[in-house]
């Protein structure tokens, strides 16, 4: 399964081990793991991701195909959770495999930049100050735009 939109917890380490197994042609694997963040200046107790699963799978499949071609990847996997999570929990993991490290790095960054603006997930955080929807960031739009 190369695109997975799931409501259950996943284990980052298990996923990376399964991903790199049996790809002896490849020398470079890059993994991005996005975790629920909570800091003293911006503490949260839970993060809830709402999702439109059917559209998410369509969008992630398209982004992944584009990355495979564009960066000559041997493999790419995207795992994205939805539902309610706690600080430290993994939200998203993107893994790329390529003969050379530059492509693996670029492929993973490309996937993350597109996913931030083009995948139908919406984040809502709950902390001492209450519950609020996270607004989309112009820095994410800029990050995506550099691949155009």
């Amino acid at each position, binding site marked *: 399964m190369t695109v997975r939109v799931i409501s259950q917890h996943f284990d980052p380490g298990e996923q990376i081990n399964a991903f790199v197994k049996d790809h002896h042609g490849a020398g470079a694997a890059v993994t991005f793991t996005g975790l629920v963040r909570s800091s003293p200046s911006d503490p949260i107790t839970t993060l809830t991701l709402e999702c439109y699963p059917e*559209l998410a799978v369509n969008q992630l499949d398209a982004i992944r195909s584009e990355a495979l071609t564009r960066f000559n990847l041997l493999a790419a996997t995207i795992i994205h959770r939805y539902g309610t999570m706690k600080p430290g929990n993994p939200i998203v993991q993107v893994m790329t495999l390529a003969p050379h490290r530059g492509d693996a790095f670029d492929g993973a960054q490309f996937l993350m930049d597109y*996913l931030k603006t083009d995948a139908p997930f*919406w*984040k809502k955080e709950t902390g001492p100050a209450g519950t609020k929807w996270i607004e*989309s960031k112009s820095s994410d739009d800029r990050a995506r735009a550099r691949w155009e």
Partner: protein
Amino acid sequence: MRVLYFAWLRERLDRSEQQVEPPEQVKTVADLINWMAENDEAFALAVEKRSLIRAAINAQIVSHDASLADAHTIALFPPMTGG
């Protein structure tokens, strides 16, 4: 025609989906939004800033000028904040 709502749009409208039967002159996503806003004040307020409303037809992202021909499911939602 089924209309789905997500995130704060779903919360403001207090529903996650509804059935609509727009008249024939409603040809695009923009037309649909305008027609629904005319008939529903709460909806009109929620979609007031059109630039914050994204749309999908049959689980494919589209722009507001996309045609509703062959549309069985329309989704309306705020800018995405995944990853």
